[in-house]
């Protein structure tokens, strides 16, 4: 990953905007932002952002590559779509946010300790193992994400919810033993491997 990062840095030394256009989902929209700030003003998470969307777009144009890709900002996006609905220039802002997050993660620049980053990884690992989300395991790994002690505390706090879910059949304690998988779990793995291959060959084009 970091090799790719180095290659990218070389290629796009002077223009991060071009890199974003080439590699980030919906990235070619970034140039269309006219800095009106409507998106930032519409965002329910606004106060929690390190850089609100409009500022991120400006940073991209100002070649702030590291800062953008390692920012926690786009990880704060809740996909509420308020910004998209309101942007007078029609930018697919939510998609760009996810695109930027994904690209930063691929390059290994995403902030390691950011909870959404962590959760996303847990979710991904959990899902790709069997082709199904194992809720018990996902829940547990989430509780223990920040260490054993924290995990116990969280588990105790959440025990009523867990029991309730069990009672209504929403959570099966036996899932802890492997759990059930989807029918073609191995096919899903093949699919994902292929997708990764395509993605990397796409990026390879920009490496050289």
């Amino acid at each position, binding site marked *: 990953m970091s090799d790719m990062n180095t290659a990218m840095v070389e290629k796009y030394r002077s223009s991060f905007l071009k890199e974003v256009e080439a590699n980030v989902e919906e990235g070619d929209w970034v140039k*269309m932002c006219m*800095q009106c700030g409507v998106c930032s003003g519409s965002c329910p998470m606004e106060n929690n952002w390190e850089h609100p969307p409009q*500022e991120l777009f*400006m*940073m991209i144009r*100002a070649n702030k590559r590291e800062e953008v890709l390692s920012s926690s900002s786009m990880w704060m996006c809740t996909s509420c779509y308020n910004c998209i609905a309101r942007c007078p220039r029609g930018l697919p802002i939510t998609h760009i946010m996810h695109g930027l997050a994904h690209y930063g993660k691929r390059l290994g620049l995403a902030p390691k300790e950011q909870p959404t980053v962590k959760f996303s990884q847990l979710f991904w690992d959990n899902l790709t193992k069997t082709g199904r989300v194992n809720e018990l395991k996902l829940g547990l790994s989430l509780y223990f994400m920040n260490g054993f002690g924290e995990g116990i505390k969280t588990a105790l706090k959440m025990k009523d919810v867990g029991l309730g879910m069990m009672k209504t059949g929403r959570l099966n304690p036996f899932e802890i033993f492997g759990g059930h998988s989807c029918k073609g779990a191995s096919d899903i793995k093949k699919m994902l491997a292929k997708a990764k291959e395509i993605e990397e060959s796409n990026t390879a084009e920009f490496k050289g």
Partner: protein
Amino acid sequence: MKIGAYICQGCELGDRLDSGQLATTATRDGKAALAKEHPFLCNAEGVAMIQNDIDNEGVNHLVIGACSRRAKTEAFNFENVTISRANLREGVIWVRPDTDEARELTQEMADDYIRMACAESKSMKIPAASGEQELTRELLVVGGGISGMTAAIEASKAGYKVDLIEKSGALGGVAGQLVKRVPAKAPYNEMADTGIAEMAAAIEADGNISVHLNSSVTKTSGAPGRFEVEVSTESGATNTVTTGSIIQATGFNTYDINKLPELGGGQSPDVVDQLTFEKLVKEANGGAIKRPSDGKEISNAVFVQCAGQRSEKEGHLPYCSGHCCLTSIKQARYAKEAGADATVIFTDLRTPGAGGEDFYRGGQEAGVSFSKGEVSEVVSAGGGLEVKYKDMILNEDCTIGADIVVLATGMVPNNGPDPYLAQDLKAAEEAEDESLVAELQAKVEVAPPSVLNLDYRQGTDLPHLKHGFSDSHFICFPYETRRTGIYAAGPVRRPMDMQQAQEDATGAALKAIQACENASQGRAAHPRSGDLSFPTFRIEGCTQCKRCTVECPFGAINEDEKGYPQYNESRCRRCGTCMGACPVRVISFENYSVETVGQQLKNVDMPDEFDEKPRILVLACENDAYPALDMAAMNRTEYSSFARVIPVRCLGSVNTIWVTDALNSGYDGIMLMGCQKGDNYQCHFVKGSEMAHYRMSKIDDTLQSLNLEQERVATYEVSITDTQRIPQLINEMEETIEKIGMSPFKF
């Protein structure tokens, strides 16, 4: 003279007022030869009744007691008679409560207005044009850029002959030097051809337009309808052209880039202004653009907006030039098309006009990068340039490299010198105000050469408003200048882009044609268009003080060989400022004079001191204050029944004798209402309101000598929207009088 008074009973007038008594007032007090009441005066029958009296009874002075003079002007439009209107509807019943207690005062008000109209009528003469007019269907256009060419083409289409004067060797002006233009029609997001070559060809082929290249105007004399203009070529050959009106479309110059060393202006050949960049792109001829210093093909162009503009720094332009944001977007697209990167650094991106926003979006789609930032410095670095700026979104200092930097330096109008400069200098020298003399002297030294070389007493060129742009009434008469029959079009009037310049030129051409047509009939230009009266003076009384000549806002008055004022009827706008200025009161119009107003105010019935009925004289500008009062009446806003309102053409026409007379005849309060003065003036006659304020500031002496309180005379700046405020001001005056007591001058 035979005065016929006509009292209308329509619009509830008959119910609210005793029209019989009004008729009696007209004949007994007003000395009208006949007075008739009519239930519906403005209908066909009522109008026919009046016309019949004109035709068969010899009535030639009409007094119409009905609605405001601003209503039913079509119906009450009679030829070859004088018309006075007593405003009984808007001026009386609509501003009074309909109660039994109010009735007496309401009737008194109406009676006064009838007396006043009769008194005015007696002092009026039937206006007639001087008969010296002739129709000249010819225009002179100075400047062969896009504004001048548009004006010439439009005028020719309207059947006018045009002399087009261009000081260079070719038509086209600045627009002719451009590669492409910001589009004036859809698709707005694409660059368009300038169309200049086609325009020049059209002019060439147009038999109505004679083009004078390498020529300039060396003398302009005369007046609208009969200007005599000397056109001289570089070689010195001169011919004289007679023209009906003139359009000055001399455009602009780019602001001197050398005045911006901090932005690299004059420091590096690779820092250029927008016009120079056009030249580089033209030279590239569709290929890569080469930078001036070493011919390297540019790969990165940076455009700096507001370079020395919208800046309060000494020597900078404080205004927005209005076109350069769009121009930079266009030029950034040239760079993109030539394969280079382009970044526009702006503090505010301003893209006016219908297509402006689309063009901006088109620039974004083409991949032009836009950064909101303030550029502090452009320096040479590593064989190129570095632009240092503060990114205003990120609040950080940034640097961007560039092969070429294009500064949006904006426009400086190509106007002649401020005509009042020489006069002011002379006055300062006479007053021995040394610092002012030095200041004005410095201004005279840098003043540009004259464009029109007007042979006017008030100077050689069009008066300026601010920053060297010619003066025009921005809201009401945008194409106007303060020299009647001379119109400014394009960036010489205000900063603008090509599209606006073309619209402007079209408007100016139509106005210029209107001026010719009006002048040919001896009619005034706006705002009193159609007025046949013009000022004359009683030569025996004139002391040659030159107040009228100096104060006329339109330079209409020259001096004859003997030093007497010489009125140029077709230059005159009929504001009456000269009449207000004349200390010996010898200037008058047939239908408006010191007498017509003086008699009105004297013929108000003046109750004695113990009647508890004060009288307030309101002299209201007919363009704003009077209409505002009419509108207040339409809303049934009540005001003091003690007010007597007389419309005046402009506060500038108010002669201080009216104020003195009013004080002497026992008025308790006097209110003068005119339009806003100063740099953002709203006065329809530019300086009238200002002159009035100035003159009234001197009235305090008069008040003192009469032993009267200063509060009795007040001058106000009002606007047409003050429909609530004006009635309130009148009521406040009534309260003031209550406080300070009645005037001691009642007989």
